[in-house]
């Protein structure tokens, strides 16, 4: 068979390979939440592989309450104009028109995010219908595969955004990796039951079992606040890191951002992680996840 049998003869946009391909390029990198063009430039200077444009970081969404929605298009545009790295932006779960607006603005990735208030209690966005790729959160393997079936081109752990507490991200990355390892031990017959138990399409379950990995890139998100948090996530098997409130809610954002970038690249070298962890000033003030009422937990949004 020709190696290019499935490749179009003339330039074609929006294919699965093109959508998943951008996430492949972000691997080993840090994606930072920014709320102004100035913060976006600080993030780019620190070595961010991409920025997430939003009006309020998760810590402020928690503090201020109310309905959290897609950001103002002017604000997203300002950040697109300020940096040369890819720009992501968040749409509410199920809010396909917010996603249409973000695609029209030219963002490079849409995050269908539980950090915003869900707009649909039953359905996520049909992401196959878009040229722009989507990243979605997942707490375990079944949830990740349901999102991929809907067209997600990248998966991240949900964590518990805006808390500065990494415990939920740890739980989700461990659950995802353990789920993948378990599938690899099953035979063809058992994979049918596994698909039923995971509530995920059988063909995707088989694909993961054979490859020993998700068919898309896996990042971590939610509560990462220090270089050591980032390095731990990478050692647990994440392929890159989202940092939300952890940078611009800290004492010295530029230095902390650069330190987290370096700790993500040299995640397996404790000498480097030690060195970049020195003298960073105050980290963001954290929230103990156990004290959060269920109504304020973001990770339980989406299904």
């Amino acid at each position, binding site marked *: 068979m*020709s*190696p*290019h049998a*499935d*490749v*179009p*003869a*003339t*330039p*074609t*946009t*929006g*294919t699965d*390979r*093109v959508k998943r*391909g*951008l996430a*492949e*390029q*972000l*691997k*080993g*990198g840090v994606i930072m939440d920014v709320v102004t063009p100035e913060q976006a430039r600080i993030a*780019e*200077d*620190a*070595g*961010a*592989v*991409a920025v997430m444009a939003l009006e309020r970081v998760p810590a402020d969404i928690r503090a201020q309450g109310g309905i959290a929605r897609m950001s103002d298009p002017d604000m997203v545009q300002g950040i697109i104009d300020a940096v*040369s*790295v*890819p720009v992501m932006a968040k749409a509410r779960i199920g809010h396909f028109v917010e996603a249409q607006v973000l*695609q029209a603005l*030219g*963002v*490079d*990735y849409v995050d269908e995010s539980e950090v915003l208030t869900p707009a649909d209690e039953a359905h996520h966005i049909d992401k196959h219908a878009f*040229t*722009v*790729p989507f990243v979605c959160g997942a707490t375990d393997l079944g949830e990740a595969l349901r999102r991929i079936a809907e067209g997600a081109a990248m998966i991240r752990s949900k964590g518990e955004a805006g808390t500065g507490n990494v415990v939920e991200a740890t739980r989700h990355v461990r659950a995802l990796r353990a789920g993948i390892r378990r599938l690899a031990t099953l035979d063809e017959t058992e994979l049918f039951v596994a698909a039923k138990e995971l509530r995920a399409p059988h063909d995707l379950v088989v694909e993961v079992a054979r490859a020993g990995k998700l068919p898309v890139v896996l990042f971590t998100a939610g509560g990462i606040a220090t270089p050591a948090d980032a390095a731990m996530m990478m050692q647990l098997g994440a392929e890159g890191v989202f940092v939300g409130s952890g940078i611009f809610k800290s004492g010295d954002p530029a230095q902390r951002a*650069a330190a987290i*970038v*370096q700790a993500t*690249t*040299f995640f397996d*070298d404790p*000498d*480097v992680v*030690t*060195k*970049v962890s020195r003298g960073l000033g105050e980290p963001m003030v954290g929230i103990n996840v156990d004290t959060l009422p269920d109504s304020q937990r973001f990770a339980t949004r989406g299904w």
Partner: protein
Amino acid sequence: MSAPAPDPVRIGVLALQGDVREHLAVLTALGAEAVPVRRPEELAGVDGLVLPGGESTTMTKLAVRTGLLGPLREAVRGGLPAYGTCAGLVLLAERLLDAPPGQPTLGALDVTVRRNAFGRQAESFESRIELAGVPGGPLSAVFIRAPWVEEAGPDVEVLGRVVGGPADGRIVAVRQGDVVATSFHPELTGDTRVHALFVDVVRQAAAVGRAVAVPSGAGAGAPDPGGEQ
């Protein structure tokens, strides 16, 4: 692949960020010893170097902060065979357009490269590309926020151009001596022919002893990866 096993070659993949794993896998499948390179001392003993896809700004900043940029530049300008994909093409170029002001490069290719030339992610695409020197029909080519070569110097051989679409005719593959670069990502498509071409370049350079893996002393005295600059 049925030929007798040639001398083993050791090829480094710059591993600061990007699709490092895919390059390591293709090179290993082609019979090379593939090793990640994150520190100056890891350049020692490699016969060739791959600069992967990723974010060129991120890779450059990490290379500067960790003291790797100088040794990298010395190595590729000193004749170390190199192959860059996408961000790797940006790193190898002598001149950049649409890059943050002052973004340093390795300057191993006499070309002017425009970053994100095809546009944002919505304009990212895949297609088939014919490459000079690569037999077997067109390649599967994936372009992700890709750069193109806007201008190539007299010693640069143009290997391939886009056919069709809004960027018809743009230069997307070049070679200058032992340095090869493509705007697209053969490492993502399972088509190993460009990597095979590069492994041959590395083998020939190693065989005639032209490969200067790293100038002596380049690793010594360089700041360690945690150093701040």
